[in-house]
Structure formats: structure tokens, C-alpha cells
């Protein structure tokens, strides 16, 4: 299973905070998982997730490039951060 989390504006726009996706070899990296979520969710998901400023994290660490996803990993999609 891959736990997928969405935060802030992304969560609101997708109306989704969390998804459990069955791990499969053909979605075992960030780009493939993102493409899968877009196919599954339709045009709105495609528009939101493919934004150029989207930040992706695996197991609570930001991934700047495409990266491998293992079964049991936690993946997150969120907009640029604005704390402090």
C-alpha cells in the first residue's frame, strides 16, 4: 500500500486529504504515481497535480526529482510552504 497525502490548497482543490493506493510495479516511482492519480482523478486532478510549483515528498522528505516508491511508503503532494 502507498499512503498518499495532500495538504493546504492542493487538499482543498482535490477535496481529498488522504488516499490508500495498492502498490504496483508500474506506479513505483513519483512520476508514474502522479500520472496514475491524474488518470484516476480526471482533468481537475491533472490540472492541480501537474502545476510546476507542486512539491512532492516521500516518507516526509522532499523529493526534488523522480524517485522510487516502495510498498508501505508515504507520499505527499503540497504547495510551496508559507510558515514562520
Amino acid at each position: 500500500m502507498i499512503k498518499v497525502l495532500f495538504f493546504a490548497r492542493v487538499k482543498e482543490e482535490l477535496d481529498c486529504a488522504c488516499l490508500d493506493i495498492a502498490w504496483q510495479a508500474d506506479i513505483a516511482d513519483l512520476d508514474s504515481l502522479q500520472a496514475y492519480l491524474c488518470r484516476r482523478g480526471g482533468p481537475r486532478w491533472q490540472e492541480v497535480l501537474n502545476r510546476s510549483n507542486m512539491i512532492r515528498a516521500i516518507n516526509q522528505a522532499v523529493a526534488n526529482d523522480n524517485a522510487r516508491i516502495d510498498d508501505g511508503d508515504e507520499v505527499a503532494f503540497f504547495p510551496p510552504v508559507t510558515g514562520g
Partner: protein
Amino acid sequence: MTAPPQLAVTVQAEDFEVSALQRELLGGAQEEGAVACFTGYVRGANASGSLQCMELEHYPGMTERSIEGILARAATRWPLLAAKVVHRIGRLRPGDQIVWVGVASAHRDAAFSACEFIMDYLKNEAPFWKKETGSQGAAQWVDVRTDDRVRAARWDDDKPA
């Protein structure tokens, strides 16, 4: 042999007491010659008008890890004795305290620099998001400020400032 610096992160909804945090940071130790602290407050207005309140969302777990990483980086760069960050989440109003950074070191230059470094990177890396509600009642996610990115980039040359 010197003890490793005491590094701590707290994310909480409750308000905090700055003088108590500073006392805790010192912890009765004698080596500290300098403590530099920063407190951030919610501003009463932004570019689009006055603010009624804001809601701060975060990524539980990653937030703490991210700030712990920033503190550890600061501790490799400057000779720190202790450093702590307290950041609030949830609903905040203009004038409320939102973040506190405290750094203890033997000398002031390390304390000042590390405090600023920690705050600059916190703003750029820690997964918090602000949603502001204006006086007209419309809620809006806050956009990233370019100068926050520029401020953190100043430290990129990897040499102690």
C-alpha cells in the same frame, strides 16, 4: 569533550511564554555567553487589506523532522550549545505570537547568525501553510514571498557567515 547541542522542536496550538522558553533554553548551564531569540507575530494587514484571522495547517511528523534537520545543519555550522523552535498551528489572530526561535552559544556572533539561518530555512522548508481570512470574510491561501527564498539563498555558499 563538549556535550552535543540540545536541539528541540515543538509544534503546538497553544500560545507560548517567551521568558520561560529562554530560561529553559539556558537550563542552568554556565557555558552560554549569548542567547539570541526571535519571535514572529501575525501581522494585522497584508497587501490585500486588513486581516481578521489566519489558519495554520502543517504536515504532522514532517514538520518536526524538517525543523530538526535545519537545527542540525545550524549546529554543524556554528558552535551551538542549544537551539529550540516553537511554532504554532491552528487559528491565530493579528498580534498573536506564531513562532519562536532561541539559540544559545558561547558568543553572540554564532547565536545571531544561527538564529537568522534557522528562521530563513524554516520559512522555506518547514511544511506549514497559512490561510488568511480578511476583514470582508474571504479566506485565501497565502502565496510564497520571493524575498523569503532570496534570504535563505544567502546562506548557500556554505561558509559560516
